[in-house]
C-alpha cells in the first residue's frame, strides 16, 4: 500500500532528519532558554559539568568535570575539569569559562535563573578546578548542573560578541543574536543555521572531546501537524518524529521500518481545587477535596492518557525518589465520595473548571481530560462548568490564584525531586491553589518538614523524608493527581542509538544510521 522508504542518497545517509515537537524554542542562548526544544539543541552543541546517560536520570555522570567532591556540610562542591578540551573556536576550556557561563545565567535574570537559587558564589582556584558554594546544603544542585542552561560557553568569543556576565548582565549583555546564529560550545555538534519556527541545521564537530559523532548533519524541521509527521516517517522522509500523539502511536504500531516508543515524562497532571474560600467556595472544604479525589475514575483517565502512562500516588512522579507505590494511590469510591459530601453538609455543589483548551500536551487533548473530570464529578452530584481558555489567558488566571478548579501539569524543571517542593504550602503551586501554611496545623507541619527535607544531604534519609512529605501532601493537599504521561516518539529502523530523556529529548551523540 505505501511505497518503501527512498534509498539513502550518498551524502544523505549521514544526515538525520528530525520532525517535531521542538519548535517551542524562543532562543538558543543557553543563558536565556528553558524550553524543551532549546534544551534539545543546546545539549547537542554544548556540554555541562555533569550529564545523564541515555534515559537514566538518577545518576549524574562526568561530562566536562571528571570528578567532584562535596564538603561535609554539604554546601561546597569542588569539580575537577577535563584537560585538553577545546571549544569549536579553538579556545581551550578553562574554569574561567565555567564560572563566566554560570554567572551569566545568574545575572541575566532570564527564564532559567531560578535554577541557581541558593548559589553563593563560584570560584576558580586554578584553570582546571571549579568550586561552587551554596548558601544552604542543596543536593539538587548536582542534577541541576546537567542542564544545558548551565553549560560551558566560550567566554572569550561570546564576550567579544557582546556577552556580559557581570551583575549588570541583564541590561549589558547583547550576545543573544550572536548565540542564535552560532554555537559557542564544546559539544558534539555545531549550529549551522537557525530559522525560528522553521528549521535548525546542526553539523558535526570533528574535534569533539569524546570523538566525532556518527551523524554528519542533523536537520530539524517544524512539522506542525502530527498526522503529517506520521505519514512522513512511514515514507522515510523523516528519520525521527518527536511530535506524535497517542493516535499516531496507535496507527504507526506494527508499521514495517518504523519503531515506536514512549518515554516516561517527569510530569504530573493533576486537578487543583482552590483553598482560598473566596475563590474555591465549597471546594475549600477538606471533605469536598477528598470527595473529588474519590469520585474520579482513574482507570478511565489512564486510558485517555494513552499507553504507558502511569497512575500517580501523591505528587512526586514515579521515576523520582520519594514517589509512592501505586497501591497507595487514591481509589475510585463513589459511595465514599457521596458520604463525604453529605458530611460536609454544603448541599448541592457546583464549580468552574478552568483549563487551557488550545494545547495538546504529550499527545493528549486537554478538553478530553476536562470533559472526563466533569462527567466523573457529575456521578456524585457535583456540577462542573467547563471554562476552556487559550493557554496564555488560562495560565495567567491560574498564576494569579483565581482558578476555582483547574487541570494543570507540573513538568520537572530539572531531574531532581526537590523541584516538586513547589507543592508545599506557601510555595509556588500551593500558593496559586490558595494553600498556605496558616491554613491548618497539618499545613504548618508540612511546611516545616519541607525545610528539613530540602537541606538533607544523606541520600537514604532524603528519600525517606520525601516519601513522608509526599504522603502528607497527598492526604491534606488540595490536588487530585491524575496520571504521569508519556511522550510518544518514533524513528526509522535503520536509525540506532536513539534515546529520549525528558530533560532534553533525543541525545544526538549516540545516534547512527545504517
Amino acid at each position: 500500500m505505501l511505497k518503501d522508504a527512498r534509498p539513502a542518497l550518498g551524502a544523505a545517509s549521514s544526515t538525520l532528519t528530525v520532525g517535531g515537537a521542538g519548535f517551542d524554542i524562543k532562543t538558543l542562548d543557553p543563558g536565556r532558554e528553558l524550553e524543551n526544544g532549546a534544551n534539545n539543541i543546546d545539549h547537542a552543541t554544548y556540554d555541562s559539568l555533569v550529564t545523564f546517560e541515555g534515559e537514566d536520570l538518577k545518576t549524574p555522570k562526568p561530562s566536562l568535570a571528571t570528578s567532584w567532591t562535596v564538603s561535609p556540610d554539604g554546601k561546597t562542591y569542588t569539580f575537577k575539569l577535563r584537560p585538553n578540551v577545546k571549544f569549536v573556536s579553538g579556545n581551550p576550556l578553562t574554569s574561567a569559562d565555567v564560572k563566566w557561563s554560570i554567572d551569566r545565567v545568574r545575572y541575566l535574570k532570564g527564564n532559567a535563573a531560578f535554577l541557581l537559587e541558593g548559589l553563593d558564589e563560584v570560584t576558580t582556584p586554578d584553570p582546571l578546578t571549579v568550586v561552587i558554594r551554596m548558601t544552604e546544603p542543596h543536593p539538587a544542585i548536582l542534577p541541576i548542573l546537567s542542564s544545558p542552561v548551565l553549560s560551558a560557553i566560550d567566554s572569550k568569543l561570546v564576550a567579544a560578541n557582546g556577552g556580559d556576565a557581570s551583575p549588570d548582565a541583564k541590561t549589558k549583555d547583547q550576545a543573544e543574536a550572536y548565540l542564535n546564529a552560532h554555537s559557542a560550545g564544546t559539544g558534539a555538534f555545531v549550529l549551522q543555521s537557525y530559522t525560528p519556527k522553521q528549521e535548525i541545521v546542526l553539523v558535526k564537530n570533528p574535534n569533539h572531546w569524546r570523538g566525532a559523532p556518527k551523524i554528519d548533519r542533523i536537520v530539524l524541521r517544524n512539522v506542525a501537524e502530527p498526522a503529517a509527521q506520521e505519514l512522513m516517517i512511514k515514507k522515510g522522509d523523516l528519520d525521527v518524529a518527536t511530535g506524535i500523539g497517542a493516535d499516531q502511536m496507535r496507527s504507526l504500531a506494527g508499521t514495517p521500518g518504523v519503531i515506536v516508543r514512549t518515554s516516561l515524562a517527569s510530569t504530573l497532571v493533576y486537578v487543583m481545587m482552590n483553598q482560598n474560600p473566596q475563590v474555591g467556595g465549597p471546594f475549600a472544604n477538606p471533605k469536598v477535596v477528598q470527595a473529588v479525589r474519590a469520585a474520579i475514575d482513574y482507570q478511565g483517565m489512564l486510558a485517555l492518557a494513552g499507553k504507558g502512562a502511569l497512575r500517580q500516588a501523591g505528587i512526586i512522579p514515579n521515576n523520582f525518589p520519594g514517589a509512592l507505590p501505586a497501591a497507595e494511590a487514591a481509589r475510585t469510591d463513589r459511595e465514599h465520595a457521596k458520604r463525604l459530601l453529605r458530611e460536609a453538609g454544603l448541599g448541592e455543589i457546583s464549580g468552574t473548571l478552568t483549563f487551557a483548551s488550545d494545547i495538546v500536551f504529550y499527545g493528549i487533548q486537554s478538553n478530553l481530560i476536562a470533559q472526563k473530570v466533569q462527567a466523573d464529578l457529575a456521578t456524585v452530584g457535583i456540577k462542573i462548568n467547563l471554562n476552556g481558555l487559550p493557554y496564555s489567558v488560562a495560565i495567567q488566571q491560574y498564576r494569579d490564584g483565581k482558578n476555582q478548579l483547574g487541570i494543570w501539569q507540573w513538568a520537572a524543571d530539572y531531574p531532581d525531586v526537590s523541584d516538586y517542593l513547589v507543592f508545599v504550602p506557601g510555595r509556588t503551586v500551593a500558593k496559586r491553589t490558595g494553600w498556605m501554611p496558616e491554613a491548618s496545623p497539618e499545613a504548618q507541619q508540612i511546611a516545616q518538614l519541607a525545610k528539613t527535607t530540602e537541606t538533607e544531604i544523606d541520600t537514604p534519609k532524603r528519600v525517606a523524608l520525601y516519601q513522608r512529605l509526599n504522603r502528607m501532601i497527598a492526604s491534606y493537599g488540595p490536588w487530585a493527581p491524575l496520571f504521569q504521561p508519556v511522550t510518544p516518539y518514533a524513528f526509522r529502523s535503520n536509525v540506532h542509538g536513539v534515546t529520549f530523556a525528558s530533560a532534553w529529548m533525543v541525545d544526538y551523540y549516540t545516534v547512527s544510521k545504517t
Partner: protein
Amino acid sequence: MTLYRYIIRRVLMLVPMLVGITLLSFLLSHAVPADPVAANLGDQAAADPTIVAAFRHHWGLDQPLYRQYLIYLWNLVHGNMGISISTRQPVLLDLRQHLPATIEIAVAAMLLSLVTGIPLGMLAAVNRERPIDQAARVVSLVGVSTPVFWLGLVAIVVFYAHLGWAPAPGRLSPTITAPPFVTGFVLVDAILSHHWDAAADWLGHLVLPAVVLSSYSLGIVTRMMRGSMLEVLGEDYVRTARAKGVTRWAVIVRHAARNALIPVITIVGLSFGGLLSGAVVTETVFSWPGLGLYAFSSATSLDFPAIMGSGIVVAGVYVLVNLVVDVAYAFFDPRIRVA
C-alpha cells in the same frame, strides 16, 4: 481625475489607514486579559518578581500603555518594527522571512482559482442546466464548504502517502540547500543563483498547498462568474450583437465575459485577504513556513511586536490588492470614471 492622480491619492490614504490599523491592533492585543509574561516565562520564573520585572523592562512593558503605543509609532516611522519576543529577531526580518512564503501560495491559489473558475463559470452559464453546469455547481459547493484543514490532510494522504505523486509537506526537501536569501521568494532566489534543482523542488512542493488553498476561492469565482455571465447574457446589447451576426463565441468572450468579469474582480480583491488569513491552516497542515503560521504563534504567545507587525503587513497587502482591483475596474469598464 486621471488614473495617475487617483493611484497617488489612494496610496497616500494608506498612511492614515495603517496608523488606524496599528491603533486597532494595539488596543485589541492589549484588551486580552493576559500578560506576555504568562506566555513567555515559565512557572518558576513567573513566581520571581525580579525576573518578571527584568522581562517587563526589557520588552518595554513597564511603560504606561499610551507611551508604549507612541514609542511603537516612533520606531515604526524610523523603519523599526521592534524585536519579536518569540523569535528574538527584528520583526521586520521575521516578516521578510515569512511573508514571501505566504504570498507564494496565495498568488498560486488565486491564479489557479481564476484560471479554473472563470472558464468553468462561463461554460456553466452558456450551457445552463446542462451537465457541465451541474458539475460546476457541485465544484463550487464543495469548494466553499469543504474545510481546508480536512481537504489538506486528505490530499496529503492520497497524493503523498498513497500515490507518491507529491513530495513530503514542506517548502523544500531537507536534502536541498535553500538558495541564498535575496528576495525571500524561492523561485526568484533560485533563478538568481542558478539553483535550478531548488526551483524545481519548490514547484513540486507548491502544487498541493496551492490547490488546497484555492478550493474556497475557486468555488466563489465559479459561482460569481456563472451568475454574472447569466445576467450579462440577458442584456440587450448581447441580443443586438447576435442579431447583427456576431459569432456566438465572439459574443461570449468579447462582449459578455468582459463585462461579467467586473463583479468577479471585486471578489478577487476581497478573497485575497481571505487567502492571506486562511493560509494559517494550510500552512500548518503543509508545514509551509509563512506569515499565517507566524501570526498565529505570535497571537498565542502575546508577542505584541510580532502581532502588530503581522497586522500591519496583512492590512497593507490587502489594501494594495484592492487598489489594484479598483484600477483594474477602470480597465475593464470604461463607464467607471475614477473621478
